[in-house]
């Protein structure tokens, strides 16, 4: 712990980098996964095509992806963009399947009721189907965010910043405290982000609250 306080400015800078590198991809992946997951449920072929491509992308080792993205997207090998694109690919690959499954699990009676009440497909998707899919999507999002936070550190092997740099520096200069501090900070960051996502999910799904709130609402009326 002592080490962290003595090097607080470095630690703060690396933490900031880490947050950008790991969470921007989560955002990009989520934004792209919702329409793709919706498309995957339209047709049988669309579904198998989307899910197979996602499964394939998920198979690629991250270090390999960090290295062979530059010639494909035309960046330099140590451009932070490589990390962000690579991790967005993973988040997308993970979430497309989750979004497709979540939308698929909504009871057809609910969708039919909404249609019968006069909801057009676009509005029905945004105000009925998507909110009902939130709990499952959120579960996938938590997994994606936590593994993204852990994965960024791999990039430090080839020289990207973020908290992983404390592992490689700790290794080169043989300072175990630096490596341990890095691990603890990565774990802390993962726990904090996971907790925040959990809270955001609660706020987004007021109907899914535990029984306690429902009972107080009942006695009040």
């Amino acid at each position: 712990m002592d080490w962290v306080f003595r090097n607080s400015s470095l630690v703060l800078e690396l933490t900031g980098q880490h947050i950008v590198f790991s969470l921007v991809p989560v955002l990009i992946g989520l934004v792209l996964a919702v329409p793709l997951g919706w498309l995957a449920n339209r047709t049988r072929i669309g579904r198998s095509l989307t899910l197979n491509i996602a499964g394939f992308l998920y198979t690629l080792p991250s270090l390999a992806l960090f290295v062979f993205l530059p010639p494909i997207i035309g960046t330099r090998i140590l451009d932070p963009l490589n990390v962000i694109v690579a991790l967005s690919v993973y988040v997308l690959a993970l979430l497309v399947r989750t979004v497709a499954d979540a939308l698929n699990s909504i009871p057809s009676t609910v969708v039919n009721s909404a249609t019968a009440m006069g909801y057009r497909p676009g509005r029905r998707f945004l105000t009925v189907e998507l909110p009902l899919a939130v709990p499952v999507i959120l579960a996938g999002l938590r997994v994606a965010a936590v593994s993204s936070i852990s994965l960024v550190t791999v990039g430090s092997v080839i020289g990207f910043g973020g908290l992983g740099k404390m592992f490689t520096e700790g290794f080169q200069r043989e300072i175990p405290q630096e490596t341990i501090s890095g691990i603890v900070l990565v774990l802390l960051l993962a726990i904090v982000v996971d907790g925040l996502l959990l809270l955001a999910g609660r706020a987004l799904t007021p109907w899914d609250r535990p029984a306690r709130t429902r009972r107080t609402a009942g006695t009040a009326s």
Partner: protein
Amino acid sequence: MTYLSWLFSAENWAGGADNPGIAQRLVEHLGYTALTLVIALVIALPLGAWIGHSGRGGFLVVGIANALRALPTLGLLVLLFLAVGLGLLGPLIALVILAVPPLLAGTYSGVANVDPQIVDAAKGMGMRGREVLFKVELPNALPLIIGGVRSALLQIISTATIAAYVGLGGLGRFILDGLSQRDFPQMIGGSILVALLAIVADVVLGGLQKLLVSPGLQERSAASKPGRLRLIRGGADTGASRAA
């Protein structure tokens, strides 16, 4: 195309006396992978089967699997290197720690999620605990167990690549040596090899799954959507963690 020149040179495949070629690195990589997988299976299979069968400590498996998802493997590798020094032991421990949770989660949730009616029917037919486990629960759990093996295998293959950072051989050497020599074709060649290995391993296990799982189960597991979702919610979903 110039990036691929390195990969297609026979000289690089054979290697020389003091610089091992692609063939040897590939064998090393496969060796680490196989060794890790065997050790992890020996630990996780019996434990997961017992926890799933007895229903004790399931929350522990889910908790551990979730917590370890955030543990950065590179940090663990470096730490173990600083603790036990050069050699295979440190990286091997790190790889096993990484591979156990998906195997454990797959076995546990596979066995625990077998339809209770099937288990009751087996008991009604006079089967005892051990028989129920081996003849009914494990065969029924096979799709999820193999799912766990698939995800563990991917993580081992990916992570064995970073193990080169702490002095191990394997395909990661090409990425790191290429980086230090500014030899990008070598880095990219190494990356393509690792990616190909991961894809081939996944396809082989996919085929194995089709071969081993009884046909009746395959149709059902494809149709059982609620089961899938329950797993994702529970957090023990075996396919959903990404290591390196």
